[in-house]
Every structure is written in C-alpha cells, then in structure tokens.
C-alpha cells in the first residue's frame, strides 16, 4: 500500500501543487496527467523518494519511505525520463547491471527472453541503437521485475512504436492483474484501464 499525505512541491521558487494526497493499493493503476511543467515528473520522483517534498510525506505499508530507504527501493521499479542505459554496453549487459543493482536475481536465460520480448538485440552496444530501441532496452527491465510490487514509470510510451507501446500496455495490465501497482505519467490517453487519474 503506497500512500501520500498532503504533498507540497516547489521547484525553482514556483509551487507546482499543494496538499496532494493519494493512496494506491494492490492491483491499481494510477495515471498522472497534466500539461508540460505541471509537476508530473516531480510527483513521481517524490513517490519513489528521489525528491523530498516541501511538505507532506509518502508512506509504504505505513512506514515513511525516508526511514525505509533500501527496503523501499527493493519494492519499486522506477524508470525515469532518461533511459538509464550506458551507451558503451550492450543491451544484455545493461539489463544485467540494472537487475543486479536493483537486487534482482535473474538468470541469463530470463535476461535473453526479456530482451527478445522487446526485440532488443542483446549483443549490440546501445550506442548503435535508435532512440526507440534504447527506450525498449530500458523497458525490458519490466519483463523481469514481477517481484517488485510498485512500478513508477515516467512517460513510458514516448518514442515507442505501436508494437512496443502495445507490449508495454500488456505488461502493465498483467502486473496490475497479478496484484501489482502501477503509477505512470503521460500527457495523452494511453488506453490503459486506469483505476485512478490525477490531473495536475
């Protein structure tokens, strides 16, 4: 159960939102909508603990996430605006590093399968891939992250073609069905069955 109470967010002297509260249980999908610069990414970063809100707090199963730190981090997957892949490494090496960093024990076979699922060449350096393929390489992490109950995704559908967007939608849907929670930002309708929507 992810809860936020009375969140205030200020960036660069400007108030983005005030007194925002939300609660997200298992199997729920939350869409954060709003115009550019309305604070979608900031809210997402607050929810995963990368950003400290000006007021209010975020709780995971009743405990403040600042006091849980790594314990909370093991329960979430955050995919930010930047794809978090190293240009010099191959898709497989990137995915392996990302999983190890997140504390996920994943076999080589599972890694290959996840990359193949998203159609990412595993043995090519990421620098040789297109923008959309990079995005796919980052999203491949979702295919091996069933164990983490909360997925926080920043604009997951940008730079994706129709096929990859559909794959991602299916993955998010399956995750929610298995009792996971999904929070994602978008400024367009992504065609997911959102159980909640916040417009900033």
């Amino acid at each position, binding site marked *: 159960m992810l809860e936020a109470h009375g969140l205030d967010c200020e960036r660069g002297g400007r108030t983005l939102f005030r007194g925002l509260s939300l609660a997200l249980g298992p199997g729920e999908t939350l869409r954060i909508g709003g115009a550019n610069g309305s604070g979608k990414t900031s809210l997402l970063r607050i929810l995963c603990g*990368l950003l400290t809100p000006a007021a209010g707090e975020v709780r995971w199963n009743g405990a403040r996430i600042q006091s849980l730190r*790594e314990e909370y981090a093991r329960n979430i997957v*955050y995919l930010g605006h930047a794809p978090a892949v190293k240009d010099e*490494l191959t898709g497989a*090496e990137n995915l392996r*590093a990302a999983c190890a960093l*997140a504390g996920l024990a994943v076999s080589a076979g599972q890694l290959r399968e996840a990359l193949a699922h998203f159609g990412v060449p595993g043995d090519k350096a990421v620098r040789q891939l297109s923008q959309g393929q990079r995005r796919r390489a980052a999203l491949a992490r979702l295919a091996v992250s069933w164990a983490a109950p909360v997925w926080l995704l920043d604009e997951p559908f940008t730079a994706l073609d129709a096929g990859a967007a559909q794959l991602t939608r299916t993955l998010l849907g399956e995750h929610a069905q298995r009792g996971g929670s999904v929070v994602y930002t978008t400024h367009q309708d992504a065609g997911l069955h959102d159980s909640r929507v916040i417009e900033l």
Partner: protein
Amino acid sequence: MRVVVWRELLVAMRRRSDVGTVLLFFVIVVSLFPLGIGADPDKLRVLAPGIIWVAALLSSMLSLGRLFAADYADGTLEQMLLGAAPLGATAAAKAFAHWLVSGLPLVAIAPLLALQYDLPAGLYGMLALSLLLGTPVLSLIGGIGAALTLGVRGGGVLLALLVLPLYVPVLVMGAGSVEMASAGLGGQGQLLILGAMLIVAAAFAPWATAAALRISSE
C-alpha cells in the same frame, strides 16, 4: 557492489581513449619539467618526488569530472540512488573503480618516469608505494567533490577549487615520504600516516559522497 565495479571497468575498456588521455597527461606533465629546468641531475633529483606527486594529483583530478557526470546524464545515477545496496557502498565501488582506472596506472608508470629525474635506485619502490597508498585517497576525496558539483554550471573549475586544498595533506605526506627516504631517514612515518588517511577516507568518504549525491540529484 561488484556489479558497479564490473560495469565501470567495462565502460572504461570500451572508452580506452579516456583512460589513455589521463595517463598521457601524467606522462607529459612529468616530462615537461626536466625540459624546462634543464639537465642538472642534482636539481632534478631534489624536485622529482614533488613534481611526480603534483602531476598525479592533477591527472587524478582531471578524470573526476566524469565520475558521476555520465551517470547523472543517462539516468543510471537515479537507479543507483534507488538500488538495493546502501548508496555508500555504491559510492565506494565507484571510487574503487575510478582508482583502478586512473590511479593504479599512475603507480605502475611513475617509477619509469622517475628515470628522467635520475632518482636513486632505492627510491623507486618508495615512490610507487607512496602512490599506491595515496592515489586511492585522491579518488575517495575526489568522489565527494564530484558529487557536490554535479549538475552545477562551471562545475569543473569549482571541483578543482574544492578538491585540490583537500589533496594537500596527501601531497605533503606522499612527496615527503620519498624525500625522507632520499635523505636516509626512512620515510616509513609518512607512509604510515598515508595508510591512516586511506583507512579514514575509505570509512567516511563514501558516506559523504552518498549524502552529496542525494542533495545534488534532487
């Protein structure tokens, strides 16, 4: 932690030119002095430890800017902040990898460069040993500076201003140990202090780096 070191080394191996530039910078700086000062062996012998150490300081600093900048730009830093391991451990791994790539080669090549200064044969070991103990401290302290100046405009110069004063004790002890040994006074005292600095830096610097990373990534 192991995966961070593995990834850093892999990236460094695929960007060999970056590693090479730092090493080449060290070689060139050290080699410029004999050309500028002239070929008086007595003079060079006295100056050698100080010059080699200052050059090591500068080249270690040269590569610090990249320590977290690339991770910050491509988003991997956020993943490290949200990693399953404590951020301090990740920062320690980053500093260790930085040392392996930009400190250890200096240790290996310094005795060779010292030939230009006609350093007495007995001092090569001392020089390498002092660098072996001192360069990891540079990477550890430098990590704090690199984390603090992350995302700051003109961060490179700021980093130098921030980090170089903190390098002074390492320089004094490192160059001092070789000078002491050349004066026939051993120099073990300075080496022990360098060792103590390394232990203290290894214990505390990664946590300071972690705190700085959290602040600058907000």
